[in-house]
């Protein structure tokens, strides 16, 4: 499916402006809740750019995984770490930020110069109509082992995140908790109200 070239260009311009603006907002806003919602904006505009690149499946996966899972996870983390604190200003903080900005600008100039100057070997084959079937073929033939390893990695990270995030049990209290169910892990009694 090919849409008109002018429409493609305008769509790309709008999506890239949205994405860069939202990304700058993520980095620069003082309130972190605004940053989290703008991060969702970055992810959604990234999914639109993937559609411009003829990748329908990855675009849907981007919205499902990033907006639906990662962004919600970040919002939950913000809610769990809901401490309003004023960060003490560092001495020479402006120097640190300024030098970081200079280095990042230089890196951006270098990367753009390289990507513009290099003669990429652009293929002239017209793109596929749907990307789902080739991706599935890759997953179940030549990328089968990484695919299964990724599922094991997801399981490991899920168990690891639960182990890391749960409250640690009291060592002297272990013997007393033997009366409860064998399926529940002993843990520190929770404080009901926030400090």
């Amino acid at each position: 499916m090919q849409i008109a070239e002018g429409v493609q260009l305008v769509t790309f311009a709008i999506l890239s402006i949205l994405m860069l603006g939202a990304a700058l907002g993520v980095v620069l806003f003082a309130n972190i809740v605004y940053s989290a919602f703008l991060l969702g904006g970055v992810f959604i505009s990234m999914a639109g750019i993937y559609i411009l690149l003829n990748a329908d499946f990855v675009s849907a996966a981007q919205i499902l995984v990033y907006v639906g899972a990662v962004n919600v996870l970040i919002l939950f983390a913000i809610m769990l770490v809901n401490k309003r604190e004023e960060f003490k200003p560092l001495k020479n903080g402006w120097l640190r930020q300024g030098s970081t900005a200079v280095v990042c600008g230089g890196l951006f100039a270098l990367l753009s110069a390289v990507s513009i100057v290099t003669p990429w070997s652009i293929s002239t084959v017209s793109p596929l109509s749907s990307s789902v079937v080739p991706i599935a073929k890759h997953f179940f033939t030549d990328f089968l082992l990484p695919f299964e390893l990724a599922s094991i990695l997801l399981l490991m990270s899920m168990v690891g995140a639960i182990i890391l995030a749960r409250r640690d049990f009291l060592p002297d209290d272990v013997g007393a908790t033997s009366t409860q169910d064998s399926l529940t892990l002993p843990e520190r009694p929770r404080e009901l109200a926030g400090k």
Partner: protein
Amino acid sequence: MLQLQYFLVLAAALFCIGIYGLITSRNAVRVLMSIELMLNAVNLNLMGFSNYTDPTEIKGQVFTIFVIAIAAAEAAVGLAIVLAIYRNRDTVDMEQFNLLKW
């Protein structure tokens, strides 16, 4: 016509914004958000090359899906670590996580 270079420059800009946020932000959750921005920039590079130089095999899209899966795992573990540090030190200021600082 859209060129490959547009996407590469956009990805470079996003990557540099991510690095800036990674270094300068004080809040630990915002550092994780900056890491997500950088991973998205890398994904955009992969997708651009996949569409413009390899439009029949689209191996770049397969790589992008792996990167998305690993980024989700990284976000979960990273946020759990931030939560554990917050319980331990009672702050999310990156400048006060200096146990290993010499």
